[in-house]
């Protein structure tokens, strides 16, 4: 046996011994969570932030809100939001809910997009998103966090503020983006944004928190 294989074997024995002694937690099993794949190489990509304010899925609907069925999800909004359906660049339907803000060029909007058969999971993609927003677009107040969300394998929330160029000049816009890995074959993305000064009163947080995967045609 080569020296290399001897070393590997010894390391494996040590690993197994420690596992037997301490009992590795099942959460570390690669089969338990696809997000665990890559592990040390991907540790840099893992979300570590804390959402502000805290974001959690909500079952109860606010006053006047109605639940809207999308393709593979439901979401709730009150009558202030106008609903429309678009097609995103990948040919998938994109549900849009919006109402006017104090900046005519930038509405308060929530859009739900679909990515079937994604080549990258939400951890890797949101890592790329965070790096890009921090570096290239000079976004501020950036946070990326994993959130427990029913009906999904992994859900990552990213929040940031960036200046959008409009015909009226740059407008600071606050974004929330919820990226939900429903399973290996589907990612649903909920993007909510509004001019920063409108965001808190826009109702966008309630709409995002009402998001539920499942239901309808997948």
């Amino acid at each position, binding site marked *: 046996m080569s020296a*290399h294989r001897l070393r590997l074997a010894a390391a494996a024995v*040590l690993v197994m011994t*420690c596992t037997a002694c301490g009992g590795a937690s099942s959460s570390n099993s690669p089969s338990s969570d696809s997000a665990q*794949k890559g592990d040390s*190489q991907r540790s840099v990509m893992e979300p570590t932030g804390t959402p502000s304010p805290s974001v959690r899925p909500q079952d109860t609907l606010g006053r006047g809100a109605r639940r809207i069925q999308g393709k593979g999800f439901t979401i709730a909004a009150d009558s202030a939001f106008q609903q429309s359906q678009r097609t995103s660049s990948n040919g998938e339907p994109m549900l849009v809910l919006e109402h006017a803000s104090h900046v005519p060029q930038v509405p308060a909007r929530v859009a739900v997009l679909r990515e079937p058969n994604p080549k990258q999971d939400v951890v*890797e*993609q949101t890592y790329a998103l965070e790096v890009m927003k921090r570096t*290239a677009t*000079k976004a501020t107040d950036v946070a990326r966090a994993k959130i427990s969300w029913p009906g999904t394998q992994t859900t990552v929330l990213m929040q940031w503020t960036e200046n959008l160029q409009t015909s009226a000049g740059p407008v600071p816009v606050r974004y929330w983006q919820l990226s939900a890995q429903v399973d290996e074959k589907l990612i649903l*993305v909920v993007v909510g944004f509004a001019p920063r000064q409108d965001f808190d009163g826009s109702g966008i947080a309630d709409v995002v928190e009402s998001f539920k995967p499942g239901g309808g045609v997948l």
Partner: protein
Amino acid sequence: MDPRTVRVGRADLPARWRDRFAARTVLARGPRKDFGAATLEFTGMVAVAALVAVSVLLAAVPNAPFVGSKFREAVCQIISLGQGDCGGVTSPEAHRPTEPCVIHSDSTTSEGEVAVIFVTAKNGRTYEVAKLSDGRYRITYLSDGAVGVETGVGGGLTVTVNDRNYGGSATADVSAALDFQSGDVWYASSEQEAYDILVSAAESDLKDQVVGSGGPLRSIVDWGEDQLGIGAGNPPEPDETFAQGGLVLNASAEATDIAVSAGAEVGATEALGVRTTKDGRTTVYLSTTVQGEAGLQSVGIDPNTLDPQFIGAQANGKLQLVTAVTFDSSGNMVEVSTTATAAGESKGLVTALFGGSADPSLNNSVSTATVYRATLPIKTDADKMLAEQYLMATGVMQLGGPIAMTLTAAPAAYATTEFLTAARNRGQLTQQSFDTNNTTVVGVEAEGKLGVELGVDYKLKTGELTSTGGQYWDGVNWQTWQGCTG
């Protein structure tokens, strides 16, 4: 003559260009008190536009791709408001690429200086090992799901480098690398160092699976290995990390409608992914489809009448540019490069645009591919402005913070040719040719993705790929790029 058209010598300046200038003037001029000044500036811009129109045509002649450089230099000085180091030609040596090129082969070794192999560990994770033209080795960890190589090797991993086998059999599959999504990259100065990194990475994988990547158990195992003098330890920090995006990366742009371009001729810009390096540099990769009025349709020239030909773009002349923008650790833009693949129907367009070997017939039937890359280091304010104009003209509106909507915002054609001219004069311009046994090269439709960094910015469905040579522009002529021929 259309009254909305400005007549400039042989060229008609379309009203939409003038309108664009006017629109940008409106955007940039701000408060109404500046209206008078803006009017004067607009008047000036019409004159500049006339120069620009001629300049674009001069730049577009494939048989003399660099004629008009003096003229463009003068225009550049106007456009950059006199700030500019617009025509400074550097020494030929300064143009020699510093980055090594990579040649992919479908065999475990190649006759040339470069070999690429794929090593699949028992857990199914795959590493690519490439010997680079500068003598170094590059080890790339390919992320899960990116490749379909499932060959297990048992007992650890197997490596073959330059016919030297470590362990059992190695796995080679060129399509794997071309389809690679993301991963970590290490550079090694020797074969032994490359091997050590591979072993430590594979061992780390094994430990990850059993005791996790962190926590007390992992600490115990690592400590135990140290005490017993066994194991290869954990791999060093990667020199680079790639991450690729899909819809998630572009969703906010789509939702906001900012994916719209600077003009109808420029398609939506898609963010492809990012690369971060140990020293804090970040590179953002973007893909833009350009066609129509971007001026690229006029890169053809009728050899008899010297009138522009428009056959390039009209014949499905859609061109995909993969642009890489690099920022230093302080967030300053330090380099912009753009890559295009001349293959299939895009061959004539790309070749002419990048000043490659002249092909007056714009023959689009050749199945071989040439990858062109123009790189401009950002060392002066003038080059920064020029790069920003290029980015803005190709639909990249938000990079680097709010880009100044200057009065000098130029049409895409001008911005593109100016960027390429600056890269020729003060940066690096390279071309690398490939032969492939596959005639269905995806070419510029490819998801250039991060394969750009592998020296190939397009994906082959199947088949092998062999580099037939590389060249770089030394400021005067194309020179052989040593080490880039398989």
